[in-house]
């Protein structure tokens, strides 16, 4: 039995098509990079000014001048380019990134996303998340379906301060895949051996079933 994280990552990578320019957030999204088919030519963007992130360096390749947005040492792939922070966010804000995959704390049935602050806790900042959710052509949120207290993280309305309003295109959890459409939130896929009833039970938000409801593969 694979973990919830593994299942999310396995499903999320299917969003990425050959030739795409992709931004992966910190946490679960970063793990998606390892699962991209090796015959795909995908350029991974890093907000700090790199298009074409490569794998982590060998011990001998480490370069303090070459990090990703998570501040980890990385390498570059052939065809990579460097640019400054204004150009990096021109790329993001201007709609040139095909997909951004981000983690979430809460998603509402309107497609609102909250993933940057918890009132009462030290607020570390939103980094580039608010720019990414507004700018990327497609915003995919990946998160576990319920909190560690068993509460649904998919809400009628977010209780936490927002990162963006009506910005999520697709939500992937270990149990289900939802799309956010003009007609509201739609259940597109259910994980194997999971029932719609179970998903309804674990989801505070209202959703309808897609005409083409499928099993996650």
């Amino acid at each position, binding site marked *: 039995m694979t973990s919830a994280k593994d299942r999310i990552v396995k499903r999320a990578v299917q969003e990425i098509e050959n030739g795409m320019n992709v931004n992966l957030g910190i946490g679960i999204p970063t793990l998606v990079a390892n699962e991209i088919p090796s015959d795909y030519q995908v350029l991974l963007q*890093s907000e*700090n000014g790199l298009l074409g992130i490569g794998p982590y360096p*060998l011990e001998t390749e480490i370069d303090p001048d070459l990090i990703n947005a998570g*501040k980890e*040492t990385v390498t570059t792939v052939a065809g990579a380019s460097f640019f*400054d922070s204004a150009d990096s966010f021109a790329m993001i*804000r201007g709609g040139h990134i095909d997909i951004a995959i981000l983690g979430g704390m809460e998603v509402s049935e309107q497609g609102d996303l909250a993933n940057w602050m918890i009132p009462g806790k030290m607020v570390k900042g939103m*980094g580039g998340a608010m*720019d990414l959710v507004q700018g990327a052509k497609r915003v995919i949120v990946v998160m576990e379906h319920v909190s560690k207290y068993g509460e649904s993280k998919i809400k009628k309305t977010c209780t936490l301060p927002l990162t*963006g309003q009506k910005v999520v295109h697709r939500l992937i959890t270990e149990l289900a895949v939802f799309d956010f459409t003009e007609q509201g939130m739609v259940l597109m896929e259910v994980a194997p051996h999971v029932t719609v009833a179970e998903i309804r039970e674990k989801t505070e938000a209202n959703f309808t079933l897609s005409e083409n409801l499928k099993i996650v593969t």
Partner: protein
Amino acid sequence: MNKTEKTIHEILKGLKDDSTILVGGFGLCGIPEVAIEAICRSGAKNLTVVSNNCGVDDWGLGLLLANKQIKKMISSYVGENKIFEQQLLSGQLEVELTPQGTLAERIRAGGAGIPAFYTATGVGTPVAEGKPVKVYEGKDYIEERAIVGDFTFVKAWKADKLGNLVYRKTARNFNPIMATAGKITIAEVEEIVEVGELNPDEIHTPAVFVQHVILGDSSKKRIEKRTTRTEGVAG
């Protein structure tokens, strides 16, 4: 026009208390280390510091924090260090959190003589509070204002004596835009070359934006998160 003649200590005599300073870098990558240590020694107080992050406890801007020289930070992500949290919670330190792209664009606007611009970033979030909203083609945007600094401190790879700069890899980050947005811009570099040695097509920051060039010590560059793979593993 040799911009390498003054020491950082001579330059910093012009840095007054209550100044706004812009400091390049992302995390600990591409930060002007020597300049930051010199600002520490200068003792300038009540600084407003614009920088994407605020260093760690014992390095980068964390040194200015520890020295209680910072009144306010304008950043997109902070709190990688304990001193920051303590000063914030005790009310000694003020922080203005700005989305990273909005921060970058505000700095670019400052350097480019654009007083304000509109962006969708932050609409419907706490970031939008108190900011004018305008609708373009049916979509809401908020107005964001330019940032300029009294002093800017950037880190580049190479400079010529005229102040043309070239950056290296992701150490570029906020440095080129900040270089344009300081009334006085000081570039700390790893190598100073003669005028004419840099290829004009490859210069990232033209000399006009730089008032002083100082030589840094490239051996210290600290790494925040050392992540590696082992031989034979690609991902």
